């Protein structure tokens, strides 16, 4: 029963997050909503796994967490540098511009 309620709550949050992803006026709003959806997918995996009697799915939830983090970081790096393998010196120049 507890897992059913948990799954329903996660699904409701998923609906809200998708609504935010569709509405978000800027790209960063959508990115935040996308990150939230990834986190909710992890929660759904965990709760549904316990409901289905497969608690070992938690290991896969850990891998999902890494993927979500790396994906968001990659997208943000592209926004900032336009490249995954950016030049460190160039980055320092941008930082000094931002601080001054």
């Amino acid at each position, binding site marked *: 029963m507890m897992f*059913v309620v948990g*799954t329903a709550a996660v*699904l409701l949050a*998923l*609906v809200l997050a*998708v609504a935010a*992803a*569709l509405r978000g006026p800027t*790209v960063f709003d*959508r*990115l935040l*909503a*996308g990150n939230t*959806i*990834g986190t909710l*997918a992890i929660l*759904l*995996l965990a709760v*549904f796994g316990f*409901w*289905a009697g497969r608690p070992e*799915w938690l290991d*896969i939830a850990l*891998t*999902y967490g890494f*993927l*979500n983090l*790396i*994906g968001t970081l*990659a*997208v943000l790096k*592209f*926004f900032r540098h*336009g*490249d*995954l393998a950016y030049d460190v010196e160039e980055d320092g120049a941008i930082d000094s511009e931002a601080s001054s």
Partner: protein
Amino acid sequence: METFVITVLLTLLAIVTVAIIRQRNMYSVVILSSVYSFLMASVMLVLDAVDVAMTEASVGAGISTVILLATLYLTGTREYPTARGTGIPLFVSVVVGAALVWGTFELPAFGLADTVIHKHTAPLYIEMSQKHQMPPNIVTAVLADFRSFDTMGEVTVIFTAGIGVLMLLSGRRRRDEVEVVKVTESVETFGDDVADENEPDGPNGSAA
């Protein structure tokens, strides 16, 4: 419970798909397609196909997002509406989709153990994987032991494709570096006039 979860997830998938079609900013399209992959992975998870869900999440939401963003960096980020009509493509899509749905009517019910595909080689796999002390997960045993050469071929194909993509992306960057060298050489050799001509085509102009 499974039916309810799958219904909600598939409804969200349909909504996200329509949003992807209507969206014109390509960055938003990339993020929404990553959202699509996470939802699809959740559907596969509820259908008890955790390995497929894992692949969908890592390839769909991870790698292809990065590759699409790299493509957007090389091209533009805005999609302009096409001048051509959408009637014929829509008709073809609807007909192909209807044919696929029609094809599913002949399939046996989901999870039915009494069908042909579960009677041909599956009992042999189950029996042999226990007999030969293979991994406890029979799907893993089939992929990594019974069909290991097949899996090795698949891995080779994916590895080759990855190397090809890397070569394509790095080849572009090397050409940029060559252009930089050319511009600096021409600055040293011919002076300011040639440098002014070259600058708009240089990497600084295209990166901005």
